């Protein structure tokens, strides 16, 4: 299989660089720096040592016997990204990009955040590496994730409220892109998912692919075979592509991505881009986009802020089209049920995002063959969601 994206940043017909001219030079600079650093031994060493000594990698895989039994008759392993420093997989990418920024001599970092996890991860990386950090966050999300706002401020980041549009993640990305256009020479924008213009989907994927690389080795060691199924939730798609990427060449592994089904199939009530979206361009990339018939971007809903986004990473759109990865959705209600069941049966409180993958297993696990080995990405811990779930009761 040819390595993707191609030279111009496309995964098949998806991806590309659809941004104003002012940003093009910066994207080229970022790509050039990355392609050079990727082969640079001292860079690799620095990244690996931070991942090991600071982030806490490799993260373990935990067999979830009791929760697995609720789902079906297979062996379920959880890849424990929740045990990373800051509590989610987002730190893998934040550290990697912050290191690149430092080598590019960009002293100022900006980031967008929805649930706050990527903002916290970026603020953490900046504190560690001595970089200035500004995080854009929608006002609605700031209210939903008060604790993470305070956490970012504790870490020395400036959190800028975004009051335009739907005041959520997509508007935070708009503001971050505007900042990037304005401060193009001094600033690096650490995008948190496999979204946006090339080279972001490639670079974020590469930094997250450590998840699947570790998981494959760990599952092989534990079971002496490849997993039969790998499953993860898909917002922008960074934790899922991180899990899937190294598994793509192993055709026997069934790969499943789970989107946010929200409250139902009506536009505005969910974030299921494959069932409800159409080909479009948002935030610099061509992918499947939730939009109205006039090409205006739709508002989305999910119980989990991290999945609440109208577009999906272009590589996912490509993998869906190829049929290599299957995509389904899981409702708010089912995700919430999985959130409770995993907490009770395994003593692990999952992020509401990750609970979507678990919810799909709860509902559909019976269709998975007996004794299969299933690995689910537990992309983050649910502490951040406890106040929200508490309020629902």
């Amino acid at each position: 299989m040819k390595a993707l994206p191609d030279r111009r940043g496309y995964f098949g017909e998806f991806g590309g660089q659809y941004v104003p001219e002012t940003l093009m030079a910066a994207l080229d600079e970022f790509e050039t720096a990355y392609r050079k650093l990727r082969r640079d031994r001292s860079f690799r060493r620095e990244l690996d040592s931070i991942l090991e000594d600071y982030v806490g990698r490799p993260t373990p895989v935990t067999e979830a016997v009791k929760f697995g039994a609720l789902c079906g008759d297979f062996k379920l392993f959880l890849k424990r990204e929740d045990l990373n420093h800051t509590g989610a997989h987002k730190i893998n990418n934040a550290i990697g990009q912050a290191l690149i920024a430092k080598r590019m001599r960009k002293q100022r970092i900006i980031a967008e955040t929805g649930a706050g996890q990527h903002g916290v991860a970026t603020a953490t990386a900046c504190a560690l590496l001595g970089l200035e950090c500004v995080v854009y966050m929608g006002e609605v999300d700031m209210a939903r994730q008060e604790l993470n706002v305070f956490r970012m401020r504790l870490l020395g980041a400036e959190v800028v409220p975004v009051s335009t549009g739907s005041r959520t993640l997509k508007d935070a990305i708009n503001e971050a892109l505007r900042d990037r256009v304005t401060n193009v020479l001094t600033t690096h924008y650490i995008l948190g998912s496999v979204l946006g213009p090339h080279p972001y989907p490639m670079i974020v994927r590469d930094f997250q692919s450590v998840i699947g690389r570790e998981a494959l080795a760990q599952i092989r060691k534990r079971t002496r075979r490849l997993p039969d199924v790998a499953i993860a939730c898909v917002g922008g798609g960074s934790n899922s592509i991180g899990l899937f990427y190294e598994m793509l060449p192993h055709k026997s592994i069934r790969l499943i991505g789970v989107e946010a089904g929200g409250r139902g199939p009506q536009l505005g009530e969910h974030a299921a881009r494959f069932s409800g979206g159409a080909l479009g361009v948002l935030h610099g990339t061509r992918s499947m986009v939730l939009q109205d018939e006039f090409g205006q971007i739709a508002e989305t809903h999910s119980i989990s802020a991290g999945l609440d986004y109208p577009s999906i990473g272009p590589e996912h759109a490509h993998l869906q089209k190829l049929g290599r990865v299957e995509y389904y959705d899981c409702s708010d209600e089912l995700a919430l049920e999985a959130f409770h069941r995993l907490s009770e049966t395994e003593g692990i409180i999952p992020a509401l995002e990750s609970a979507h993958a678990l919810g799909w297993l709860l509902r559909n696990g019976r269709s998975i063959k007996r004794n299969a080995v299933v690995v689910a990405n537990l992309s983050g811990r649910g502490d951040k969601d406890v106040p929200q779930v508490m309020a629902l009761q």
Partner: protein
Amino acid sequence: MSRVNSLFARLRKERRCGLIAYITCGDPDSQTTVRIIEALKDAGADAIELGIPFSDPIADGPVIQAASQRALANGTKIDDVFAIARQISDVPLIAFSYLNPILRFGFERFAKRALSEGIDSVLITDLPVEASADVKSKLGKLKSVFLLAPTSTSTRIAAVNRASDDFIYYVSTTGVTGARKELDPALLARLDEVRKKVTKPLAVGFGISEHAHYEALHDRCEAIVVGSAIVRAIADGDAAGAPDRAAAVVRRILDN
């Protein structure tokens, strides 16, 4: 010869730097937009950019974003932009859009309608020249305009010079649109360099709001583009007075 082409030929003959006025269609409403355009013409605008509102305008500053939101909130669609264009005559019209609304509308269909309603060319802000070949072939006879920025490399300048039909839109600061007090001196130097590398007329936009800006740019480019200053004036009061307020901005900048 296209209307935009003849405009630049005329400007050259008159040794005059033209003024292109940007407005967001449908803000505050379509009928007022038509009256605003008439007033801008009377005040001395040489061409009009018809902004097609989009929900996520990443290249625009807060003033134009707010105008887009108002236009969308009152239901403005691409069809309304065409209806506005139909009521305007005697001035070149350039549609200014993000890619997604046109992608959704269909490029061929958009081009056909635009041409029949009197729109001369289209500028798609988030369509870089690398990705434009396919789109340009679908747009057929509708001309396209591309952006250059101070950060554009020589290779990109050459590519834009080839692809841009009637003129090139030069983004005057590394900033987004928004009326600024002063023009960046480094911009002026960079503009002079860029101008030497292109053969098409240059229109300089983003940030122009004062007569002093116009004077500083008069001999450095073929036209200036005024956007945020006009859009801000439109929003600053009732709909009935919007045409006069918009025209006043153009008169102030041209000092006539």
